[in-house]
């Protein structure tokens, strides 16, 4: 086969071209996409992730509450909406073209927007040491726990006395306190404040165990009417209405017992017995006096 010189030259130039291209392709490295992310930012922020490279790619954002996918162009910035970064935690921004590259960043809680206030107990007897306790936790407006130390002012006020008033900084996201209950039965208000934020709770101080329980009795045509003096604790607080007083009578016919609730500070019962009877009463750990009555039929 004979070749013209022109053909030979064309073939040589083409092969040279392809060879050069192949050489260039092998020698020049491919430029991988890179991501530039902020170190950390507050929840609900606007932010931008910058990318390098060129061409189309898929962008993934994986984090708490978020697992999104979007098509992007490398070399252009990727805007993240506040809604995508509402939850505090670690996020991974991933860009995939031929290969995948990723970068991680952290979202922290925004400034406090509400306070959770846990108080115990809801009812506390008076004069109990360290009986009342509480924990305050600040949250941002996305319900993320604010871990940066925040000063919380706590006040505990009874009807006529302030039981506790102090500023306590949060540690690990919480501030806690403990205090004794007051002397007077009644409602107690607890207020926690942090800047403009306030949380209020209430608990009830109730009378302690009854003290000096005394009874009196009166024979009547219908039986023996037994009644307590106003039942109070040792601090003078009236014992809650509804508290049970057990009246007992012992006589030749047997024993009689009536569980009667206190109403208006006093418990009453009618014992339908005749003859000599010994009356007594008990409420909680308090025992009352004894009375001997002889009711004739």
């Amino acid at each position: 086969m004979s070749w013209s010189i022109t053909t030979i030259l064309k073939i040589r130039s083409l092969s040279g071209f392809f060879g050069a291209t192949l050489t260039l392709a092998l020698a020049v490295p491919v430029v991988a996409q890179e991501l530039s992310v902020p170190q950390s930012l507050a929840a609900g922020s606007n932010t931008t992730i910058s990318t390098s490279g060129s061409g189309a790619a898929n962008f993934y954002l994986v984090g708490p509450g978020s697992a999104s996918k979007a098509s992007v162009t490398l070399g252009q910035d990727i805007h993240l909406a506040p809604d995508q970064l509402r939850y505090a935690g670690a996020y991974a921004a991933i860009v995939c073209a031929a290969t995948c590259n990723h970068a991680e960043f952290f979202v922290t809680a925004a400034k406090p927007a509400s306070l959770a206030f846990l108080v115990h107990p809801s009812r506390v007897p008076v004069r109990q040491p360290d009986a009342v306790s509480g924990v305050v936790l600040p949250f941002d407006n996305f319900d993320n726990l604010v871990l940066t130390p925040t000063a919380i002012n706590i006040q505990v006020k009874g009807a006529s006395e302030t039981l506790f008033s102090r500023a306590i900084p949060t540690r690990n996201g919480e501030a806690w306190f403990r205090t004794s209950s007051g002397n007077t039965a009644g409602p107690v208000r607890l207020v926690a404040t942090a800047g403009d934020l306030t949380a209020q709770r209430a608990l009830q101080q109730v009378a302690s165990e009854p003290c000096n329980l005394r009874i009196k009795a009166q024979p009547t045509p219908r039986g023996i009417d037994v009644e307590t003096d106003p039942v109070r604790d040792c601090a003078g607080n009236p014992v809650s209405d509804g508290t049970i007083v057990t009246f007992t009578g012992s006589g030749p016919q047997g024993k009689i017992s009536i569980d009667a609730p206190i109403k208006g500070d006093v418990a009453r019962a009618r014992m339908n017995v005749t003859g000599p009877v010994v009356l007594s009463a008990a409420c909680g750990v308090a025992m009352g006096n004894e009375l001997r009555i002889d009711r004739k039929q």
Partner: protein
Amino acid sequence: MQFAEKTHQRAPGHGQEIIHGGPETMFTRSLISKAMTYCLWVGSLIVLFSLAAPAIGPDIAVELDISNAGPRKIETQTEGRILADYRLAWADIAQALNSNDSGPVEGIFTGAAKDWFDQTVASQRQSGITTRYSNQSHRLQAVFYAPEGDLITLHDTAQYDRQVLVDGRVILEDRGIHRYVVLMTPGADRWVIRELIEVQNF
């Protein structure tokens, strides 16, 4: 089991006796019956072993250090319960994020943590993403236990293998230390997670 019976049939009009179940058929049938018996034995053994064998689940190691807990001292029973419930929580989290189904974590989370986890699963499902966790180990330290025992704060230094996949293709693979601040509160029958926040440092 032997197939020993032969049936004899005299074809009408023919003098030749037709015997069913000749030697070759007998051998085949014997082989089949032996094979069936063998399969039955093997299958029974497999069932027995699977029943006896411990359940194979994700391998998760959890330790809890309560030495710094306060102001309330953590009770022994509470310590055991928190360990068990936290381990169970991470097993369920791994299963939920792998299958994109919130069902496994029902009752594990409460409050805001429940909301963000449900949202994570929903958005993974929407974008075709799944996350796989394996070889988990969690070192917990109790840093706060409320005076009434109704709240506990834990610092979890966790290590695990994580893969993020899209349509079966791995787009992110890592193994590293992850730090979590965990808030747990007592639920009806277990401790539940109220906050699970990954942080850079405690």
